[in-house]
C-alpha cells in the first residue's frame, strides 16, 4: 500500500523515519531519493545523516539544534516542492561477472531450485537492467532489483561465515555484490573483480542510488 501522505515517525530523539509505502516499487523509491537529494542540497547543519532505503528515508539530526516538530515541518515543506518528474542523474554500470564453479558455489542450487540449467540462470540474471534501490548492510553493498521471477531463490537458512569480496548473490528477488569479505546468507552465483568500495575515495562507492546495473558474463 502507498500511504496517501508519508508517515513521519520519531526514531529516538535524533532521527526521523519517513515512510512512503509498505510495498516496493520504482516510483516510491524515486520519491525517497528525491527527498534525500532535496534535503542534502539544503546543506543544513542540523541534519547529520540521511539513509534512504526501499520505501523510506531516515533523517538523523542534532536534537540540540532542532526539534522533532521543526524537522517534520521542514520535511513537509520540502515534500510540497519536490519534483520527482525531473530524472535523477543515473549511469549504466556494467559488472563483469564470472558465474559458477568456485566463483558461484550456489549456481547449481539456484538452477535446481528453479528447474533450470545453470546457463539459463546466467541468461536470466544478465537479461535485465537492475536498479540500485539503496546501499546498506555493508559499505558499498547495493540492493539491486528486481531479479526475474524464474531465478528467485530464498536466502540460506544458515548464513556462510565468510563470503569472499566481489561475490554476486541472490536473495528472493534481490541481487547484490559483497564489497568486502563478510558473513552472508545470499545464494552466491558468481564473482566480479570490480572494486565496489574504496574509503580513500569520496564518494566511496562504485554504485550510487538510482544507478542502473547490468551483469555481463565473462
Amino acid at each position, binding site marked *: 500500500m502507498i500511504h496517501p501522505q508519508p508517515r513521519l*515517525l*520519531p*526514531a*529516538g*530523539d*535524533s*532521527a526521523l*523515519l519517513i*515512510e512512503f509505502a*509498505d*510495498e*516496493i516499487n520504482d516510483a516510491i523509491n524515486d520519491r525517497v531519493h528525491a527527498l*534525500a537529494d532535496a534535503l542534502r542540497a539544503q546543506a543544513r547543519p542540523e541534519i*547529520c*545523516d*540521511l*539513509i*534512504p*532505503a*526501499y*520505501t*523510506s*528515508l*531516515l533523517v*538523523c539530526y542534532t*536534537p540540540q539544534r532542532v526539534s522533532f516538530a521543526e524537522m517534520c515541518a521542514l520535511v513537509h515543506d520540502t515534500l510540497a516542492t519536490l519534483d520527482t518528474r525531473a530524472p535523477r542523474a543515473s549511469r549504466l554500470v556494467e559488472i563483469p561477472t564470472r558465474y559458477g564453479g568456485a566463483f558461484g558455489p550456489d549456481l547449481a542450487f539456484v538452477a535446481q531450485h528453479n528447474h533450470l540449467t545453470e546457463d539459463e540462470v546466467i541468461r536470466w540474471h544478465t537479461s535485465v537492467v537492475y536498479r540500485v534501490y*539503496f*546501499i*546498506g*548492510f*555493508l*559499505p*558499498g*553493498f547495493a*540492493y539491486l532489483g528486481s531479479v526475474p521471477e524464474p531465478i528467485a531463490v530464498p536466502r540460506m537458512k544458515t548464513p556462510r561465515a565468510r563470503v569472499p569480496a566481489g561475490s554476486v548473490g541472490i536473495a528472493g528477488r534481490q541481487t547484490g555484490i559483497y564489497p*568486502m569479505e*563478510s558473513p552472508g546468507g545470499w545464494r552466491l552465483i558468481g564473482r566480479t573483480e570490480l572494486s565496489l*568500495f574504496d*574509503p*580513500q575515495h*569520496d*564518494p*566511496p*562507492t562504485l554504485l550510487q*542510488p538510482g544507478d542502473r546495473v547490468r551483469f555481463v558474463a565473462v
Partner: protein
Amino acid sequence: MLLVLDAGILTTIQDAGRWGYQAYGVPVSGAMDVEALRAANQLVHNPPDEAALEIHSPIALQTDTPHLIALTGADARVHINGRALPMWMSIFVRAGTTIEITPARTGGWRYLAIHGGIDVPRVLGSKSTFLRGKFGGLEGRALCAGDQIPIGAPTLRDLSAAAGKSIAPRIYRADIHIVLGPHADWFTPEAIAALTRAEYIATENADRMGYRLRGTKLTHARAEEMISCGVPLGAIQVPPDGQPIVLMADHQTTGGYPIIATVVSDDMAHLAQRAPGDVVRFQVAGG
C-alpha cells in the same frame, strides 16, 4: 609518540564518529561513550571530538616525550610508573614513562586522551577505526604490541602546568530513557508494556555493533517481514525470538527487524557502559 607495550584486546582509535556517509552503507563508528570521550579531551585541552584510545581490557603504553593525558569512562586503575593515579584528571607524564590501565571489571569502555590528539589520517572525515571495514584509526585495525601511536603537536607551552585538573566522575545508571517506535505498531500491547516494566539483563553478546539483552519476550503482532529501512543509533531491534538488540556505534546502516523503541541520545553512554550481567530498565522519555 606512544609505544604500545601491551595492546590488550580490541583497543582502537575512536573520535566522535564518521557522520554523513550512511547513505553509502558506512557505519558511523566513533566512541561507544561519546560523553566520556569529550570529557577526556576537555581535561587535556583538545577539541571535544578529537580521537582518543578506546580501551576495553588491560593495556600498557610507554612515552618517548612528555605528554598530558587523561582517562575517563568505566572504572579502571591507572598506574604511572607503578604509581596509582585517579581517572577523570589530567596527568603530566615525562618521557620514558610507563602507563598501565587496568579495567576494574569486565565490560565497559574507557578513553585515554592525549594533548595534541592522535595524529592518524582522517578517512571519510573521521579518525575512527571501523574494524569490519578495515579502515580508519591505525591502518584500520586494533592496536598491536610494538605499534607507535603518532601524537599531534602540542598547542600548550607548559604541559605540567595544565596537569591536576579534574572533573567529577560520571555515574553510570541502569535507567535508560527511550522513545517508542518507529515500529511500535509491529508489537502487541503486552510487548510494549513489558519493555518498560520488566528488567532486562545485558548479555555476553555485546560488541561495538550491538548489545543483546535478555528478558521478557517481546512478541511481534504482525507475521509478515518488514521492508528494510535505515536504522538509528540506539534502535532497539527485536528479531523473531523476541529478545531485544540495541544498536551501538558500529551498527549496520539498514535493518529488517522491527524497532520497538529507540534510546535517547543522552542515555547512549549509560547503556554503552552496561556490562554483561548488568540490569537495564527502560522508561519512556518525558513519561
